[in-house]
């Protein structure tokens, strides 16, 4: 009995408010052929379209770069379901005499792997076919959880992304800031899963509590948006996990690490962009002239960070600027470990790998790992001592400004 009023209400709603009806509902749209032009809604820009107006079906499989040939053996060994080691034959043949494709002696049992050789780069890369169904699942989850910011089309300009700085990532560019894999490399699936699970502090990019499976699907979809020349479709590209900075050399000497970190931080000139955290006189003592910056020629006000203009992170065609964080004031994006604690390792990894497109260089290789670790400890120390502690910070700043 109660069904009837409900039905009536629904019918009334459908008549007065076409917005309530599902797309493709002819009766609700209610236009006759003659008036079609008048009635048809104007084409909305993507950022003001509603998610239900998007067709989530992906029709084509995508071939996506999985890894460099170098690491293929490890991958294959870890996945016996899929790869079979064909022993002892130089050119293995199946029963009918056809040569079987093997990669590093492994045979792919699923037909989803392809090795591509690029003669110019003299490089072989390992591609995987990601099915259209999987991409569709990824797209569905993407629309549900990520599109409000990253845009219905992955362009980083969703309805909720308007005026937002830093802007959400534009996935059609294929560049990432905090995956810690080195500025030239593409992040591995696991690096992306980790990043999305942990989120980026100080931005609306929160830790996402999706299942590992959902995340992997979303990530395949995101990868499929990358351009042919610079993303997961490019033979030249290199997919890497987080940069390796070795074992922690400072486990028994945290204070030593902080002291060393202070010296390295100021000697290599991190204060060219970030603030300096010792007095100008002390900087002069520290700088040797061999760390990367010349003695005596420093920015004017070292208590303020210096903005990096024209970065590759664009909004509607405009290249946005990024302010390097003042560690005693701003929150850093990717400084926490999986347990949520501020971690010298995570900070050191960011410093070691650099932040692509933000001007923040990759320091791995230009200083010993031990110093990178020391910087990790030093930055963690700055954050723990001054961040969110107005009085302690004010005291430090007044010291740096010479009592003003």
């Amino acid at each position: 009995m109660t069904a009837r009023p409900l039905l009536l209400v629904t019918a009334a709603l459908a008549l007065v408010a076409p917005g309530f009806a599902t797309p493709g509902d002819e009766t609700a749209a209610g236009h006759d052929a003659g008036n079609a032009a008048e009635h048809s809604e104007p084409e909305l820009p993507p950022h003001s379209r509603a998610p239900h107006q998007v067709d989530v079906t992906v029709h084509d499989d995508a071939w996506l770069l999985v890894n460099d040939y170098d690491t293929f053996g490890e991958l294959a060994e870890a996945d016996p379901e899929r790869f079979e080691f064909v022993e002892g034959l130089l050119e293995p043949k199946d029963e009918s005499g056809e040569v079987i494709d093997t990669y590093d002696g492994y045979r792919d049992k699923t037909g989803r792997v392809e090795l591509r050789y690029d003669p110019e780069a003299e490089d072989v890369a390992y591609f995987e076919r990601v099915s259209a169904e999987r991409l569709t699942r990824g797209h569905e989850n993407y629309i549900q959880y990520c599109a409000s910011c990253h845009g219905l089309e992955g362009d980083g300009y969703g309805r909720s992304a308007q005026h937002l700085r830093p802007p959400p990532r534009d996935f059609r560019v294929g560049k990432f800031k905090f995956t810690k894999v080195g500025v030239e490399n593409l992040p591995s699936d696991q690096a992306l899963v980790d990043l999305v699970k942990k989120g980026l502090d100080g931005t609306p990019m929160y830790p996402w509590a999706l299942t590992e499976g959902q995340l992997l699907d979303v990530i395949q979809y995101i990868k499929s948006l990358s351009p042919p020349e610079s993303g997961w479709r490019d033979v030249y590209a290199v997919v890497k996990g987080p940069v390796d900075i070795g074992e922690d050399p400072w486990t028994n000497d945290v204070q030593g690490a902080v002291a060393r970190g202070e010296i390295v931080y100021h000697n290599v000139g991190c204060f060219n962009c970030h603030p300096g955290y010792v007095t100008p006189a002390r900087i002069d003592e520290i700088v040797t002239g061999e760390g990367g910056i010349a003695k005596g020629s420093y920015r004017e006000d070292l208590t303020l960070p210096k903005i990096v203009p024209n970065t590759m992170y664009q909004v509607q065609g405009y290249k946005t600027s990024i302010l390097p964080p003042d560690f005693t004031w701003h929150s850093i994006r990717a400084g926490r470990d999986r347990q949520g604690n501020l971690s010298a390792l995570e900070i050191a990894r960011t410093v070691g790998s650099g932040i692509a497109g933000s001007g923040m260089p990759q320091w791995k290789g230009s200083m010993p790992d031990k110093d990178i670790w020391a910087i990790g400890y030093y930055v963690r120390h700055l954050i723990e001592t001054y961040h969110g502690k107005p009085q302690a910070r004010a005291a430090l700043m007044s010291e740096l400004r010479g009592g003003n």
Partner: protein
Amino acid sequence: MNRLVSLVSRARVRWLATPAALLLASTAASAQEVVDRWGPTPPASTYGPRFDSLFSLITTLIGISFLIVLVMLLVPCLRDNAKKGKKAHFDHGTSLHDKRFTAVVSVVVFIVLDAWVLVRAMGDLREAYWNVPAPDTPGIFKVEVLAQQWAWNFRTPGVDGELGTPDDVITINELTVPIGRPVVFNLTSKDVIHSLFLPDMRLKRDANPGAINVAWFEAAKSGDFDILCAELCGYAHYQMHGKLHVLPEADFPAWEKDASALALAAYDANDTEARWAWDWKE
């Protein structure tokens, strides 16, 4: 029959459970601890105590009427039920006497409960919640709030005291305000309806797309407090929270000066899409 017995005994267990729990609670913790743990956080705004006392008034009035109703239900049940040699009395309550009784009770309930609470609540609304200081009131601290899925964007004027200028302090999920100055909000939303909820300040106000809502409070305590979204706004609604920092008078000017200097350092004059200040609404 068995089922009936088990039902009865289960009901008895439940009847016993409440007093037992209360007894346990009272031995384990003092009344103050119980209030601290389970009660509302103490009010941290100047008008907070008003709303708390309204809340207590409503709770007391409802509690008393609940007890009266309970007694009035129990008495006839015990008095008029069937006993040996006496048949239970059944009555539709349609006699003139009963109708008069019902009418009197209704009027009394309306006057004592509804009218009293209405008058008190209207007073609180008019004198506190709706009594938003005019924009030219000296000393007010203006905040523009732009809600989105799923974050709070705040804009405060910075040292020049003007909104919409390069030294505006723009923050995400964090708001720093001075103690003892009226903080006036202009709220709106980019996408769906959100609701700005500062539980310690006893303030809650919707942020609607396409409209600017006004709200205010004045902090009476310094410290860090919660900022929540009180309107289900999509998948990550539960993550849409932030921190309100109320700074003591002595610390605020220094904080504001540094915040403005950093805002100026971050300002990109050509990035027009990043602008979102609006004309202040009274």
